[in-house]
């Protein structure tokens, strides 16, 4: 299958020919005895949005969680193969997963703000990483992160109110602000809009497009329209295999694999 994957990888993106920000090499994941991912080779290019699509249970979220070692906390989960971030093996024993997660941030499916104030939610990351020394520094990070997440205007008068009191879409943007406050290089998003209404979804999608300028983004989504709207590259997973990866336009207009075609035209999945 990897043969096919390589063939279907036309590097025609507008961005200059950059080395991959992250690179998966023969990634296998096992939950106990069950293999969830089979030999996935996938490059994540810098300052691009890579969308992972596929039917439920196909392993796209599993792959996403491998990229910042969130699978480490699952006892029965075992990862084989090699994943690199800037050519550095992230599963190397010399690399601390806590440091890695400061470089590869994550936004989850369900908005999960801490039951603290909006301010404390955003300030939490900079505080634990010691990136800001003074109160003024933290104030600045909070404001700029909320601004980048397009939320500052809506919440600037109630920064000390609980983040859990916001609407679903605002909560999710708060979670994005919280993630970018740490200034990661890569942001992973696991179906960030699946719990939101269309208007909130549109806002987040707009935001993702803006964030692409400064961050590398990997997004798992169930909505093919969303993948088509926000991503530059799309990877299609099926039954734990990476079936096809390529430019979003090419995947949606001219898929090379019949399974991809079947999925995007809605014949299964």
């Amino acid at each position, binding site marked *: 299958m990897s043969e096919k994957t390589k063939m279907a990888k036309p590097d025609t993106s507008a961005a200059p020919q950059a080395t991959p920000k992250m690179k998966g090499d023969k990634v296998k994941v096992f939950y106990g005895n069950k293999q969830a991912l089979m030999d996935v080779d996938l490059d994540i290019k810098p300052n691009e949005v890579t969308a992972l699509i596929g039917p439920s249970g196909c392993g796209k979220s599993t792959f996403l969680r491998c990229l910042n070692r969130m699978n480490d906390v699952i006892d029965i989960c075992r990862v084989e193969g090699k994943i690199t971030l800037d050519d550095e093996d992230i599963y190397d024993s010399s690399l601390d997963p806590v440091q890695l*997660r400061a470089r590869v941030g994550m936004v*989850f499916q369900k908005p999960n703000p801490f039951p603290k104030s909006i301010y404390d939610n955003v300030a939490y990351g900079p505080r634990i990483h010691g990136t800001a020394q003074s109160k003024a520094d933290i104030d600045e990070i909070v404001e700029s992160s909320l601004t980048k997440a397009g939320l500052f205007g809506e919440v600037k008068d109630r920064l000390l109110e609980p983040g859990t009191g916001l609407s679903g879409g605002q909560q999710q943007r708060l979670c994005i602000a919280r993630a970018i406050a740490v200034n990661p290089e890569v942001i992973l998003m696991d179906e960030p809009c699946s719990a939101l209404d269309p208007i909130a979804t549109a806002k987040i999608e707009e935001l993702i497009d803006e964030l692409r300028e400064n961050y590398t983004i990997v997004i798992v989504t169930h909505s093919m329209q969303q993948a088509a709207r926000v991503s530059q590259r799309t990877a299609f997973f099926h039954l734990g295999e990476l079936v096809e990866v390529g430019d979003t336009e090419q995947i949606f207009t001219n898929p090379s694999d019949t399974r991809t075609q079947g999925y995007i035209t809605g014949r299964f999945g």
Partner: protein
Amino acid sequence: MTDAIMNSKPGAEIRRPTLSADRLKKRYAAERRFRLYGLGSIIAAGLMLVFLVGSITGTGYSAFLQTYIKLNISFDPEYLDPAGTGDVEQLRTADYGGMIKKNLRDNFAEVTSRSDKRKLYNFVSPNAGFDLRNMVIENPSLVGQSLDLWIKASDDIDMLRKGYVDRTEEESNRRVTDTELGWYDRLDSNDRIETRFNTDFFSKADSREPEEAGILGAVTGSLLTMAITLLLSFPIGVMAAIYLEEFAPKNAWTDLIEVNINNLAAVPSIVFGLLGLALFLNFFGFPRSAPLVGGMVLALMTLPTIIIASRSALKAVPPSIREAALGLGASRLQVVTHHVLPLAMPGILTGTIIGMAQALGETAPLLMIGMIAFIVDVPGSFTDPATVLPVQIYLWADSPERAFVERTSAAIMVLLAFLIFMNILAVMLRKKFERRW
């Protein structure tokens, strides 16, 4: 594909729910019946509680009152200071009992026979002399004076005053004889008998004389014991729960530990007492009857409760909060201390207070380590001999004097007050730490 689909072909009979009035009536009747059963249970439980509290307060409230007799006491130098030295040591060791007896004889000049005199002496508390001694030591100028003083009555007169002696009963079946009744009535008609608030009940420790027995020793003992229990079981229990829930790998060993903790929670408490006896007293040689050891034994007993409650409180924290913190690059310890523990705190505190309330009412394990002793001093430190509230209740319930009956109930009231206080504390802590999301 399936039968259901096969049968639903056009023309097949479609069954719709029958909405007959009869069925509907039955359904509503069943619901009404169920509600009535529930209401009945609540009322039954409430009545039992009212009966329990009512019978305890009904018997116990009189223990908060004490009868006093006004007697003319002359501080006779012959008894107190025959040599006239004014030496405090002499005043301390003087025969106050004899002095009171002499004064009683003077107050009742007509009493001459030995048996009548003994009955007369029985009017006042045998320990009343100590109160007079304290008065004299405080103010030595009393020697030689003559004063009308309120002297604490004995338990028999106290019971008579409180109406627990049936005058119609045959004399031989009464604790108070007809002669004594006569003296009592004379004193009463001269306004020489009075009932006051029983401060001694709250300021003294146990005594063989009911009118001298107080609850302070047991309350202090309970507080000291609970302090040790809390200091040991709370940190150990919460730490164990955090480790098992957040850090420990899930393998056969942790499963075994979990099963054992759950089993320990069901072990009869007296077994913990035996363990304490073997380990703390016989092996380590800690003092017997001491709050230190009592607290350690009760901590052993409370630990499983706290661990189980803390683990379920930790488990109830949504995993999304852990993921959010981990995703930001927090270490596992930071995830626990910054997010999980504060959110689990209300549950942990509730579990701890339930465990402590259980320990407060526990007697059996303390019997094994000698905390059932009769202790007349209020314990001053963790290693002093002490007793605790439930043991005090048990000891008083076992005493034959009528006056201990009301004291038993009063002690139960004090114990219940403690439990209610702890429960209110639990509710308040819950409210304080609770966060909504």
